[in-house]
């Protein structure tokens, strides 16, 4: 067949950009052409994989607050003519009552600022955890689907840990004693939110668990945050310098035991 569909048409098909008459012609062709059908499927898979891979870099939280501040300063600035040009000077007659009121206002203002900052931090932490949950779950699913051997295959913590030397800008400990029926299968170097992370692969019975260890970001994760994503259980935790996300379809109790062992290893608790 010499009239296969062009790349442009296949792309426009998966992007939903064909006009009704073009779509009818393309569909009629696909019904008789396995080669173009395979091409269309490949384009569609590529599009969804690109969408997942491309959503990679999250803006730092301080950038958002900096921009919000900039917007308010830039537009909220009163026009030149309305700005007071009088120099500040001491107010005559400001007695004890005045100073007391000013002091009380200062205390209230300080309280409001602290409250607002806590609220912002808490919102940022929730948003960051939700982002980590999605990315970690996607990577866990992709690892299961790929069914490829880990980059370092070993159940020996003294082999897996040194493999990361020079590959990631931090170090971590692996637990000596694991919960029953739990085994280290190996590890991969990966990236989470654009930052290098150690992906530790465990089996818990017949279930697989992925643990992502990474450097702590500016926003601290709430300890032992738990979430569900696409049927997987996700647990997040932080230590002094690291944060981690565990993903698995095993029950939360057994996943928590593995998380506790890992957390204990970071703090020197051998359990």
């Amino acid at each position, binding site marked *: 067949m*010499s009239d*296969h569909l*062009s*790349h*442009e*048409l*296949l*792309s*426009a098909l998966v*992007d939903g*950009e064909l006009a009704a008459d073009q779509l009818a012609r393309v569909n009629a062709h696909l019904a008789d052409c396995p*080669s*173009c059908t*395979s*091409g269309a*499927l*490949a*384009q569609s*898979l*590529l*599009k969804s*994989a*690109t*969408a*997942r*891979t*491309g*959503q*990679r*870099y*999250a*803006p*730092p939280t301080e*950038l*958002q607050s*900096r*921009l*919000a501040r*900039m*917007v*308010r300063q*830039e*537009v*909220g*600035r*009163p*026009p030149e*003519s*309305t700005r007071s040009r009088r120099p500040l000077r001491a107010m005559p007659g400001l007695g004890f009552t005045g100073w007391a009121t000013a002091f009380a206002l200062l205390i209230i203002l300080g309280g409001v600022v602290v409250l607002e900052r806590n609220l912002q931090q808490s919102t940022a932490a929730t948003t960051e955890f939700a982002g980590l949950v999605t990315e970690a779950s996607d*990577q866990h699913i*992709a690892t299961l*689907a*790929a*069914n*490829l051997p880990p980059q370092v295959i070993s159940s020996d913590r003294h082999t897996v840990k040194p493999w990361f030397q020079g590959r990631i800008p931090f170090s971590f400990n692996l637990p000596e004693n694991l919960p029953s029926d739990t085994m280290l299968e190996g590890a991969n170097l*990966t*990236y989470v939110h*654009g930052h290098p992370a150690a992906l530790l692969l465990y089996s818990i019975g017949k279930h697989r668990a992925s643990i992502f260890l990474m450097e702590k970001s500016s926003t601290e994760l709430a300890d032992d945050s738990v979430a569900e994503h696409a049927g997987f259980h996700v647990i997040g935790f932080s230590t002094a310098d690291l944060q981690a996300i565990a993903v698995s379809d095993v029950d939360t109790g057994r996943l928590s035991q593995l998380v506790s062992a890992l957390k204990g290893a970071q703090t020197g608790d051998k359990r």
Partner: protein
Amino acid sequence: MTLLPWKRSAHQSAHQTSGFEGLALPLLPSLYNVAFWLSRNATDAEDLVQETFLKALRGYASFEPGSNFRAWIFRILRNTYLTSRTGLAAMRTVALEDELGEGAESGMTLHPEGAIDRRTPEMNMIELANRAALQTAMEKLPPLLLEVILLCDIEEMKYREIAVILDVPIGTVMSRIARARAALRDVLQSSNALTRGFRA
């Protein structure tokens, strides 16, 4: 109620602030992601987004309410990138290559008939599950092809919207997207062939 001129100005200004904030800040994650992909590092991406916000804010008075704000601000981001140091360097490197390739639009197939993917969907699925390979393939795309993939696949924009941002005809958008996907597939296939070669 009639406002005095200075009061009217302050009132409009306050209205503009809240309007701009409400429209622009929700787009920050998308703008930053695209900026990072284009500039390839966090510092340049932050500078690019900040400059985009500043330009958009100062030109917000010229923005027509009800029109496409997302396309408008992405266009500012793109133009800011193109005139930045990294943007100029990147575009200079690929200009010639891209000009040569641009002639391939208007529905022409870019590869011979036999090049149409005949691999099984399962094989494709396994390849595509490898995020690292796709990430590397995307990083190898020239900026003109990378930006259309980012806008189309990640930002889920329609061709018409992308055409406005890039200031090119829809046919060119269509052609660039097809070329970008063909290039991604070529890189993925060659990296897989290389892996198979090592394993053999």
